[in-house]
């Protein structure tokens, strides 16, 4: 399989707190990697480094085998790295299509740069259709949608902007079974395209094993367990976390 993104020996500290302690990951095109771990284990720091939000103290990132500098969110985007954040980077008061084109608006030609609403509507509709999301109208305000629908719009936005590496920060958090099913179906469809590498941060072991090809467990900034999803179980993962917790308490 072709390598999509690789990070080597990432170290990141905030004051005395070591968020990442020599963590390395590698994800292939078409592969879905699940990143599990407790709060504060370093998962979010990893995502923020890969999206150019934070810079690592040391360590290197490779995209498509080439070393890259991720100095800003724009740098990461230019390399096809897109993130769907936990707090849903959507604006409730704006329409679906405005949200999908936020900061990447299409403009009419000419000196004044007026928004091309018509073209944005059309393309938003096409992009949603392409990945199997049906909405009554792209003019609907995002605030009128359910949590699952909003998550789907956020994912669609990332895919539409040509994401090659899609980072999902807890895409199923606080979602009911039906809503979660919607997103799981969507991720399945993206996987079947085969050209996008997905890194998914999650808390729910069972759901993560259902969606992902491979999972890693991050504890105190390091990978403590790694396995193909089919070769492990939620029980085994839970067991490792419990053992670690007990050891930490005893120590």
């Amino acid at each position: 399989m072709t390598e999509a993104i690789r990070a080597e020996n990432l170290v990141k500290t905030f004051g005395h707190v070591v968020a990442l302690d020599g963590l390395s990951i590698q994800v292939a095109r078409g592969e879905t990697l699940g990143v599990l771990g407790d709060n504060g284990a370093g998962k979010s720091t990893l995502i923020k480094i890969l999206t150019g939000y934070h810079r690592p103290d040391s360590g290197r990132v490779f995209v498509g085998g080439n070393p890259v500098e991720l100095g800003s969110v724009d740098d990461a985007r230019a390399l096809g790295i897109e993130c769907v954040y936990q707090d849903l980077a959507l604006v409730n008061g704006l329409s679906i299509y405005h949200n999908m084109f936020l900061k990447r608006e299409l403009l009419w030609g000419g000196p004044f740069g007026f928004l091309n609403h018509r073209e944005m509507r059309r393309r938003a509709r096409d992009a949603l259709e392409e990945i199997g999301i049906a909405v009554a109208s792209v003019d609907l305000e995002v605030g009128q949608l359910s949590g699952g629908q909003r998550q789907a719009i956020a994912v669609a936005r990332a895919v539409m902007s040509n994401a090659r590496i899609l980072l999902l920060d807890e895409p199923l958090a606080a979602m009911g079974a039906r809503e979660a099913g919607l997103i799981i179906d969507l991720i399945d469809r993206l996987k079947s395209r085969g050209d996008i590498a997905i890194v998914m941060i999650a808390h729910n072991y069972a759901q993560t094993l259902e969606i992902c090809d491979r999972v890693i467990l991050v504890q105190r900034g390091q990978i403590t367990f790694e396995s193909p999803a089919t070769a492990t179980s939620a029980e085994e993962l839970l067991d490792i976390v419990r053992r670690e917790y007990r050891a930490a308490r005893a120590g």
Partner: protein
Amino acid sequence: MAAPHPGPLLAGGEREGGGGLARRAYTLLLRPEASVVLVSVALVVYFELANQNFLSAANVQTLSQFVAAPVIIACGEIMLLICREIDLSVGQVFALAPFLMENMNDWGVPEPLAIVGALAVCALIGLTIGLITIGLRVPSFITTLGMLFLITGLTLTISRGYPANTAGGPLLVDIMGGWSYAEILWALAIVAAMHVVLRHTRWGLHTIAIGGNIVASAEAGIAINRIKIANFVLTSTLGGFTGLLEAFRVGSIDPLAGGSNMMFLGVASGVIGGTAIAGGAGTIIGGLVGGIMLGILQDGFTLQGINAFMFDIVIGAAILLAMVANIHLARLRGGGTQ
């Protein structure tokens, strides 16, 4: 958030362009602008019945002059309110601008250039407000409250507390507000331009996005600070411009013109017209109809010869009513966080 549609994404809502004319009319009527227009029409009918002179040419002209200044101020304040900021000092910039112009004129700067110069200084004041608010993280309420006193003092100092007369050739004076309908035409032109800015440019869209969800805007890479500062510059400049228009219309410059009253009329016009004080929503057209309604109230009650002491009570109550109505209409619409 209203009625999330669970399950399949193909929700029950109607498709674009398909049917539901009655529903559309209903939605339109629930827009704050529409209700304000209805109330305004009712007020016009009432005042015309109570006093036959309300729709006379002379009074319509007076009315247009009541309306013009708050509406122009509202255009700036609406942009600020939408991105969760406010400018309390715009009424003081209103008073300062004509003195800046007059002083430059006294130094030998030709009148048209003095106008541009005065507006440039106003823009600089807006820039200062923006830099203090953004750079030093002072809430704009506080920054502009300080500015309010500072600029009052500045205006009193350079005017030495005395009114002055406006200069300039007759054509310039007419264009800048001397002609009866010049001011309202300026107001309408500015409304049109700002409507386009808010609905059809990135500046406007990003202003709404910032007010709606600042974290999302930052993650999308929107230049939040630049947009906010631009809106402060816009508001101060429009404030100064309105001050110049009023000075040319009246033919004299008063160091105590405008003031907080003018600022509140601008803010009230916007809020009555549906701008959310908590940001994220609002329209320029709403500011126009809100300003017209306030103008009708002021002018109508003046014609009625209502007791001057009662006047502010009536106006204040009307403003309160209009705002309460809009907040509840927003809830009916099921949107927004107002």
